[in-house]
């Protein structure tokens, strides 16, 4: 059991994240707390840790959806645009609806964001299924269309969202002032739900089967259209939820939000071991992939490297992570071969 846990891909990623964390803690140095005067590590303190998790959470949530799409053998490039459209739509609805109760506007905001995400995902799914065009092309198209709609409808303004939403997204939940755990907890919850969906439900198993071999899935009587549409809907829902969190947390929404997020999201899923040819991936790993990418960005700041190199470093890290993952899979196979050799 322990060996199985150690061999699993999640554990590998988690260990890398812990190791990077330890390195950062070691090299970060300290500063004196302004109030108590006690020395505090520049990385290993609750504020920085939660801030890092918060940075990761917005696209980690989308990465869970993206990994499900990727397992089905598809791809969704439109998540960043869905995020922007959902955020902008919510902000406009709340602005025009005037002063609602605080709980009321949080609820309305959530429903609008998730609803827009649902509709956009449904659009992607229907286009992929009925036009029989590769999802890369479809979602490349909707990526521009949806962001364009957000641009036109918001008139390119940044729109403020009601205080109540920000209060909810920044609730400290008793952790103390200026600590905001809500996005992090949402990320953990979404990853957990995604993991249950993929490993415990009929639909999740069907997604793996469809991504692994669509032909055999058809011969087994699976409803392929339904599977394909549902993965894009899930991806859209995740983007809508991320938009709700993001817009609430930062207090405004604009059509330029989450520009380029689709690539971070796909990178997270791939660093998390999802195979672009389908049939392979995990929700927890996708979340860990997102955390790792953010942590690498964070380390540039913590270690005081030149920030101008951020993109180069992140790009290298993505390639290295995937190569390492492939290497460990091969090592594993070779270990099995040796075991079999000894048996005979």
């Amino acid at each position, binding site marked *: 059991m322990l060996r199985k846990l150690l061999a699993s891909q999640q554990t590998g990623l988690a260990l890398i994240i812990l190791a990077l964390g330890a390195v950062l803690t070691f090299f970060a140095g300290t500063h004196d707390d302004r109030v108590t005067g006690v020395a505090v590590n520049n990385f290993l303190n609750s504020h920085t840790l939660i801030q890092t998790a918060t940075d990761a959470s917005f696209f980690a949530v989308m990465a869970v959806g993206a990994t499900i799409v990727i397992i089905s053998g598809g791809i969704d490039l439109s998540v960043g645009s869905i995020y922007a459209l959902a955020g902008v739509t919510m902000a406009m609805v709340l602005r025009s609806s005037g002063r609602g109760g605080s709980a009321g506007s949080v609820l309305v905001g959530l429903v609008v964001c998730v609803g827009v995400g649902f509709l956009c995902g449904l659009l992607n799914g229907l286009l992929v299924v009925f036009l029989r065009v590769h999802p890369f092309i479809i979602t490349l198209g909707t990526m521009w269309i949806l962001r364009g709609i957000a641009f036109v409808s918001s008139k390119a303004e940044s729109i403020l969202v009601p205080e109540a939403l920000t209060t909810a997204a920044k609730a400290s939940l008793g952790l103390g002032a200026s600590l905001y755990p809500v996005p992090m907890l949402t990320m953990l919850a979404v990853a957990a739900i995604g993991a249950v969906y993929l490993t*415990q439900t*009929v639909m999740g198993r*069907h997604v793996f*089967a469809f991504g692994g071999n669509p032909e*055999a899935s058809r011969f*087994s009587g699976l409803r392929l259209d339904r599977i394909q549409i549902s993965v894009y809907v899930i991806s859209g829902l995740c983007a809508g939820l991320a938009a709700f969190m993001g817009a609430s947390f930062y207090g405004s929404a604009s059509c330029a939000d989450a520009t380029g997020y689709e690539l971070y999201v796909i990178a997270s899923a791939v660093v998390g071991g999802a195979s672009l040819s389908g049939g392979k991936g995990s929700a927890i790993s996708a979340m860990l992939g997102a955390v790792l990418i953010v942590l690498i960005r964070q380390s540039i700041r913590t270690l005081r490297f030149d920030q101008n190199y951020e993109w180069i470093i992140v790009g290298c890290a993505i390639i290295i992570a995937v190569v390492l993952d492939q290497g460990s899979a091969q090592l594993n196979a070779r270990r099995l*071969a040796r075991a079999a050799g000894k048996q005979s």
Partner: protein
Amino acid sequence: MTAVGALRFAGVSKTFPGVRALHDVSFAVASGSVHALCGENGAGKSTLGKILAGIYAPDAGQVEVFGETVRFESPREALAKGIGMVHQELSFCENLSVAENLCLGGLPARGVFIDRGATRVRAKEMLEAIDAPIEVEARVGALPLGQRQMVQIAAAVGAGARVIVFDEPTSSLSQREAERLYLLIDRLRAKGVTSIYVSHRMDEIFRLCDAVTVLRDGRHVATQALAASSEAGLIQMMIGRAIETVDVAPHPASKAEEVLRVSGLSSPGKFSDVSFALRPGDVLGLAGLVGAGRSEIAQALFGLDPAAVGEVYVAGQRVDIRAPRQAMALGLGLVPEDRKRQGLVLDMSAQSNTTLPVLERLSRATFIRKGEERALTASFFDRLRVRTPGFGAKAAGLSGGNQQKLVLAKWLAARAKILILDEPTRGVDVGAKAEIHALIDQLARDGNAILLISSELPELLRLSSRILVVRGGRLAGEVARESATQDGLLRLMAGLAA
């Protein structure tokens, strides 16, 4: 032997992830002979062929080619030493023409441009060298399998191959195409080319080969002249024990109520006006050449052909099956001809493959009940004697026989009563084949109705109660088991006068 040795293997071993494929194999092959490599699936015969052709490198041991010790790192190096291979899965750029494929290694060029004329001429020469009249302008993807194989042989011979490895070359050929291949191999022998013929089909080994090497579990069992071998003896060496030839007792045509009636089923360009009926206990054989429309009929019945029209009745009720899901609900199951492409999700576990069509039944509110899933898998693996390292083992790693049993288990788990079996023993080893035959017989005796499609006439003759012959998309005749002979069926299949 006085003949010059073409090949010598000495202590060759090879290990793959999870299996030891070859262990200390040593034998020699005479020059200019056709040498059979036989054994059950997983015995290592294909691996040995691939080592010779430079696809794999051995972990230990030596290979000598015409007295020279060689070690190939790639098929290109092997070909440079005169060894070519005809693959089980033919590897071509299907979007290119025959001529382009034949010259792919060194396309004639003028500057940076392809010299199309020279490409055509060279390709024609290569095909003529083996007397294979194939249009060099045709796209390879559009050629029937038999012709693609000819192209591959032409490529090997044209590149100067003195030894050609054939890896189960007839496994997806029609009878007529196979005959053409045999004649070609005879001609190659007359030219002094040595052939290594990997196969487990006894009839063709005896038809073609001069000598035979038997492998079992990666070890060398025997190398002997074919003249000194008997079929029973070879089989016994292959499986390591004498097999009780499962002689299925004659199976009377059933008198029960029809469970399936097909009337005037047609699909444009595939088959037309197909009619037959199936009763519980029936094993209805469906014979025909490859391309005659057998698999197409099966897939149309299973709701996989949107263009199909005609009347289908299940248990007396007129039905219109438009999706596999509907077919399943009516009690139909289809074991497709290509298990790797259509039957299994190779990257998923043996268990997940088995339960794939019935997950909904095993779940409560969309959550899979893992205990029940496991129990169901266990019961069918036990009944079909599926051997896996564990239920979680990937289907990709199982032998052909066990993979085929998985596909069967899948439809038995789905409680199919009308089973359409399309080439259920293709690429399956001798032992598993006997088990599958016994299972088919038992299923019929238990009151299931079975439509059995097979290219192996002995299989049809052994198992079927009646045999339908399809030719060119139409029914060419129906033969009762008692009056069916291999020769008579072949004539019907090919459209020759009886």
